[in-house]
């Protein structure tokens, strides 16, 4: 039952919803009364970010010392982007949701345009030789990061437009599928499997939340599965990843290296870990230890207890995100928060799944932890968007809700 749509059969007298519907319709035309940003979400974000930056210092200093002769090189840069990111997050939290809704479609167009340019003008630094970055001098910038946010905003916007036709194939599937196909096609030109996986998953979650019917997902899963199978079998590097996933020890010095070294690091942690800063696997045994494989270092140093604490913090942040979505003032805001929160969840899940060899190895960074300037900025701006929308939840209602929960 869709509580947002009395027209879809909700005849119960619920003045609150009626008022919200009214606000929905007028949201774009007038300023809403805004409360404070959601403090738990903000604090959880800052707490995770702080732990993440500390872990970058711990994980990176060995490589930075040996290879760059500057033990704090990565840390200082990450700290700079973290501070800048928090500032941008706070700036982003000042905007209305209507601003983001206006930005949705243009941002999608821009990100698709940039994705189209990357294969030709981008630079590659990944081991498979893919071009995924724009070199902006002081930092490098990955258009796929923008594309993910753009998909969230655009889909939220589109769902709001088609809110009454989402059950149909024509409106509930086709436009979304087209955008996804174009985006994924562009990503595969690079090629960039992990971003494709996230974009598809993200799009699917948006459509699911927006009301696309179950049956279409079943068909979609079959289609994506087939395409995925083809990709995995036809692309040499993808298939080697599968082999390495099934048995990392079949090629311990090459394709299985990362996974094996990751498992060594995680397994070394035990219950309480070897202690913060004391990781041994970070001494160049584990590749990408400050990047995609920062979580194994956290496991090694902080142990099962520390790793679970980090995951619980993520889980709390994600659940708080969905809580905010449920309580957000309008449909667009709810969908945007669902998208951003889900994106966070997907990234955390896939990253940890990769490093624990639950899924085949692919380059997915851990939000707030992995070293990388633009990714962190984008991540924090996304949190800023969630916080911006959280401000529009009426204070009184939130209070009531919380009292009621107690």
């Amino acid at each position, binding site marked *: 039952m869709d*509580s947002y749509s009395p027209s879809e059969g909700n005849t119960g007298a619920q003045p609150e919803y009626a008022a919200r519907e009214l606000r929905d319709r007028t949201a774009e035309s007038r300023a809403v009364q805004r409360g404070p940003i959601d403090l738990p979400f903000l604090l959880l974000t800052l707490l995770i970010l702080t732990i993440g930056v500390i872990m970058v210092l711990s994980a990176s200093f060995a490589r930075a010392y040996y290879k760059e002769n500057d033990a704090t090189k990565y840390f200082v840069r990450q700290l700079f982007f973290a501070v800048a990111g928090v500032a941008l997050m706070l700036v982003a939290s000042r905007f209305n949701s209507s601003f983001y809704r206006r930005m949705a479609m243009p941002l999608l167009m821009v990100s698709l345009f940039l994705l189209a340019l990357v294969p030709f003008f981008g630079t590659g630094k990944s081991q498979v030789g893919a071009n995924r970055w724009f070199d902006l001098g002081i930092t490098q910038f990955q258009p796929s990061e923008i594309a993910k946010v753009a998909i969230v905003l655009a889909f939220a916007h589109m769902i709001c437009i088609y809110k009454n036709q989402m059950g149909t194939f024509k409106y509930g599937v086709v436009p979304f599928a087209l955008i996804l196909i174009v985006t994924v096609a562009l990503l595969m030109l690079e090629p960039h499997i992990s971003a494709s996986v996230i974009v598809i998953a993200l799009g699917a979650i948006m459509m699911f939340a927006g009301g696309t019917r179950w049956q279409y997902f079943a068909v979609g899963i079959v289609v994506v599965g087939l395409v995925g199978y083809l990709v995995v079998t036809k692309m040499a590097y993808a298939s080697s990843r599968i082999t390495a996933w099934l048995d990392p020890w079949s090629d311990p010095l090459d394709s299985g290296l990362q996974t094996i070294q990751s498992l060594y690091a*995680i397994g070394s942690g035990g219950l309480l870990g070897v202690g913060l800063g004391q990781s041994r696997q970070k001494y160049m045994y584990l590749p990408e230890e400050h990047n995609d494989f920062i979580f194994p270092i956290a496991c090694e140093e902080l142990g099962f207890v520390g790793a*679970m604490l980090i*995951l619980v913090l993520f889980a709390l942040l994600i*659940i708080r995100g969905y809580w905010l979505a*449920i309580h957000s003032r309008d449909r667009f805001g*709810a969908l945007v928060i669902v998208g951003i929160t889900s994106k966070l969840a997907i990234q955390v*899940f896939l990253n940890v799944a990769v490093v624990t060899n*639950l899924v085949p190895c692919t380059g997915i960074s851990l939000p707030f932890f992995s070293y990388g300037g633009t990714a962190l900025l984008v991540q924090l701006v996304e949190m800023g968007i969630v916080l911006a929308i959280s401000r529009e939840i009426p204070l009184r209602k939130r209070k009531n809700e919380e009292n009621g929960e107690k």
Partner: protein
Amino acid sequence: MILRRTLVLAVVCGIVAFSVLAVQLYNIMIRDHDFYEEKAIRQQTRTVAVAASRGTIYDTNGRTLAKSATAYTVFISPYEIQLYSTKEYKPKEIHYGDDPELIASGLERILGADHDKLLEQMKDTKSWYKTVATKIEADLADEVRAFIDEYNLAGVHIEEDSKRYYPNGDLACHVIGFVGTENYGLEGIEALYDERLEGTNGSVVRLVAQNGTEMLFENYQNYNDAIDGNDLTLTLDCNIQAIAEKYLQQAMEANYIQNGGCVIVMNVKTGEILALANANSYDLNDPWALPEEVQEQLALIPDEEERSAARTAALMAQWRNMAVSDTYEPGSVFKIITMAIGLEEGVVKENDNFYCGGKIPVGGIPGRITDLNCWKHAGHGNQTLREAAMHSCNVAFANIGMKIGAEKYDEYVEAFGLMRSKTGVDLSGEAASQWWDKKYFEDPNNMSSLTSAAFGQTFNVTPIGMITAVSAAVNGGYLMEPYIVKEVRNEDGEVVYSKEPTVVRQVISEETSALVADILESVVGDKGGTGSNAYVPGYRVGGKTGTTTKTTIEVAENRKEYMVSFCGVAPCDDPEIAVLLVLDNPSSESGIYIGGGQMAAPYVGMIMSEVLPYLGVQPIYTAEEEALLDVTVPRLTNLDLLSARLKAQEMGITLREVGEGDEITAQLPSPGAQIAAGSQMIIYLGQSAPQEEVTVPDLTGMTVNQARNVLQNLGLFLDTAGASPAISGVKVASQIIDSGQTVPYGAVIQVTLVDSSNLGRY
């Protein structure tokens, strides 16, 4: 719909997904923790062995015989040299100066390593370890270290190692033995006690980064302390060993010994070996070096394989410890044993009469009776047991053997530890004696075995076995287990093993033993005794000569090769030490009559004359002996003429005064020198001694008086050793400085006196 589906997402993404991850993490981090940690640590650690310090070997006085000291190994890492000398790998700020040419020439300059070979080694860039030099001393290692620092080299390394030092060179080389390059004992005590000496190596486990360098902050270190090896204290006494080696060498040279020779000094009461030496000595610090003449002979062998085999054989011969590893026919020395058995069994008495007509028929059954000849074909006539021993009469001892009977004889020889067992001495490579099968020996048909055994022929024993049996015969009858290691201490100085004198069994009674010692004293000290050349004035030395022709060589090659020996014991009223000298194959070219009495006895006497005073045995001289003692030259140059004359008179030295005046400006010989009694000293008044050279005359064959006078006329002095000048008929048998050589005016010429009045192969 959004609310419901969002709730679904919240559950899936917020709870289910994290639960899956939690389970996976639990499996890896808790369930499989040990598996992964073990593998991780294996790749993260390097284990470096910490060498245990090998124990020190001391002589009985605590003097060091063998010790280990730190040495260094220099090695290069071609991998690192290649890595740090290529352009691609240059970390900022750190500049490594690795350059193959620079390293090769530097190491050639410091260590003398082969420049081209080094460059060749560096081509193997996968290797981390190529040895350049081993066991180098600290100063060279410091130079290499300075070289590394100067150019900041990443690929040249120094490792600690240890090196074995033998401060006394070749002294007691066959006893001590030596170690190989890996510091494992290869010979002697070093090999036999290797386990105790080597200790247990420790290890240091270090954490290293993947590029091989040490981790910045080590948080995992595992020290396994090395346990140093035990220290050994031997019964061996360096001073006695040096005395024994000195006289063994003199005996070898004077008698033209063509094969080997060995000497053992044993404490008869305890079985402690005080000295043990073989003539084929070598420098323990360089055991693989062969004497020059051997090398020259090897160089003549054209075939490389043959040369290599010959070289190995030469080394094995050089390292062979004849005193325990070889057997010989003991000859008349064995009469000590026969006599002891006869007296103990009561079949002979001290004063029994033995007639020797020069030969005796032996053999069990008619037709196989052969004559057994005494060494003195004319025969010894009527004699008592004591006299028969003094004469070393073969006929008398063959008779004693027959009186004892084969069965008893066999029993006793076994009880003396001379067959069917080894002495059990803790020296490597002890050989077993060769004795007849019991049944064969006891068969009356083989009576000749018994009769020849009775005077020590046609069977073989080891020198260590022989001296151990003689010790038992004179020490009260107790067969002792000979030993050389008396104490073992661990690295904290605690005694972990201590050998006490071990009585294997009592073979004869104390009374019999005392009588045997007494008779042996007669052999040396009484007029007509065949051991007179071992006589030491002031001491009660006893002993027995031995001379055999080697049966195997005589039978196979129809030529005679002799083995001469002498076994002495002293003091005979309460024996302390036994000395056995065995000389293999002397040459008649020496001019000395081939026989133990002429060739071996004088040197045993000389060893006794130094060892007994060293052991604190007080000499008791007869008046006659006292007058013939060597004189120690006093210092007269610091005295006025009158006092000098008085002092000389006191000491029984005559003075020859050269020059005028009251001031003694020089004297000959120098103070402290030993000169023969009756020598005349020269003092110079107001002038210095002549600086001329004098040619040494040939003194052999002269009496003491003749020799002293000849030397005195040349301005030289006589010092005698060997048989006592008191024995009538002693003559100079050899001299330390050969005739024809030149010495400074006033030098002391040492000669060995031998009593040659009673020649024979006894």
